[in-house]
């Protein structure tokens, strides 16, 4: 059996990229809200990290949806997904979540960047000022709902796979939590990477805040991955076989141990731990940690998608 082509493989890597991008978007938005709320308050729009998150989140979610549409056998019929809904379908509900999420995402971005938007539109399109004023009235609800829907989106990427009863490794209640946690950390990493690229200070208070949240998040991820595979092994039967097929040997075994556990989880964790909370952070350090973290999450998505489909019930 080849690692990338086998009989029971239905969903290929574009789906993993889509799951990755949806997670990045949800995580970036989540951390943008946290940064604004707990660190930056009304000056959030001036921070390179919030700016980066607000660029990454829409681009990632749109790109993800684009990949999803192109991956259909009938890409021009994609509108049918938006017209016909099936309440029992995780995908259908996910589309709904994605749409609502995007509405709140743009509303929140509008509110957060109200000052520069207003300044730019004052002379050109004065009508926009009325709209932003209206939006600002609902700031609290928008923020709250955006947090809920970004968490829902992050979890949805896992539920999408855990709704497949034919694959014992994917039919796993821990998967949505694992994808949520890794999605959030990938969002944080993308905000950090984008932030330092947008001339944000690598030693800024945003970086310190995100790194403070990131360590517990990575620890949670490790616990979730452990629980994920422990649960499979203890379930026995095909689940146990699936677990050993995935991490026991071969190409995907290497990806898991070197790429995900080594590079994606231990790497950022070690760098965060060695870098004490008070010491000065450098550009290369922030960007480097963010990059390996992103690579780790992307590998995790592909690893789960492919190895999950290797063993059937």
């Amino acid at each position, binding site marked *: 059996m080849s690692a990338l082509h086998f009989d029971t493989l239905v969903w290929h890597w574009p789906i993993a990229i889509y799951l990755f991008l949806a997670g990045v978007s949800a995580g970036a938005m989540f951390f943008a809200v946290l940064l604004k709320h707990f660190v930056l308050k009304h000056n959030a729009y001036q921070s390179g990290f919030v700016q980066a998150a607000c660029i990454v989140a829409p681009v990632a979610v749109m790109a993800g949806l684009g990949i999803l549409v192109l991956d259909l056998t009938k890409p021009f*019929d*994609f509108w*049918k997904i938006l017209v016909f809904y099936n309440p029992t*379908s995780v995908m259908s509900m996910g589309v709904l979540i994605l749409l609502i999420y995007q509405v709140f995402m743009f509303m929140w971005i509008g509110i957060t960047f109200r000052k520069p938007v207003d300044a730019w539109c004052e002379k050109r399109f004065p009508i926009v000022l009325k709209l932003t004023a209206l939006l600002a009235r609902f700031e609290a609800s928008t923020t709250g709902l955006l947090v809920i829907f970004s968490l829902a989106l992050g979890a949805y990427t896992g539920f999408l796979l855990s709704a497949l009863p*034919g694959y014992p490794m994917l039919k796993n209640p821990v998967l949505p939590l694992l994808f949520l946690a890794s999605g959030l950390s990938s969002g944080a990493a993308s905000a950090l990477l984008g932030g330092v690229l947008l001339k944000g200070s690598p030693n800024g208070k945003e970086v310190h805040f995100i790194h403070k949240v990131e360590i517990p998040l990575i620890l949670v991820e490790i616990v979730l991955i452990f629980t994920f595979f422990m649960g499979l092994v203890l379930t026995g039967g095909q689940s146990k076989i699936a677990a050993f097929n995935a991490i026991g040997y071969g190409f995907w075994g290497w990806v898991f141990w070197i790429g995900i556990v080594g590079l994606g989880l231990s790497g950022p964790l070690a760098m965060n731990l060695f870098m004490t909370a008070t010491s000065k952070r450098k550009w290369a350090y922030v960007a480097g940690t963010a990059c390996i973290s992103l690579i780790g999450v992307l590998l995790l998505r592909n690893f789960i998608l492919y190895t999950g489909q290797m063993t059937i*019930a």
Partner: protein
Amino acid sequence: MENSKRRFLKGTCALLAGASGASLLATVNASGSVKAEPDVKYALIHDETKCIGCRACEVACREVNNVPEGVTRLEIKQAGPFGEYPNQFYHFSRKSCQHCEDAPCVNVCPTGAAFIDKQTGIVSVDAWKCVGCQYCIAACPYQVRFINPVTRAADKCDFCRETNLAQGKQPACVAICPTKALVFGNLKDPTSEVVQVLRSNPTQRAKVDLGTRPKLFRIVAKSGEVTL
């Protein structure tokens, strides 16, 4: 700040109440439809003791349902040979849609293109509604779904619902089988052959532990083998 927090909480509560109300309504509707149980529910039995592996069923299905080459709605899987020459034998089992009562493909389909026909209990595909996301193919624990290269929609056995059955005939595979190894009929009719055969034979269904409640039954071949 205090005020906005309260407003947000109020909004969230209203949202949750609305959502739970909607789902409550959905369950009420569902229980309503249970009462109107249809009096036809089709099932198929594959008698492996009679099957000779001639694959006439595969050929007939392809012809009647216009299934393109390279894909198939039904496949006869072959295991063996068992025993010593010249008294060797093979096992044949049918791989095709199991017409689950609780069908994963129907549950996951985002557009409702995969559906259970209320009149007959047949799991069917509305090729027009299908967008080709292949979620159903991944969801099916029996690996019987495929993308039809002509329609580009998900496809599978539908007991010839749109072809032979619509013309009042038996499904193509059942009609052609030379050894009468396939029995098709209505589970709700106690006099039907399918019910008689089910009552007089021990039968098995695949992967029942998944809770799919399939309606493809098999009468297992009489001679066995040692596997661990």
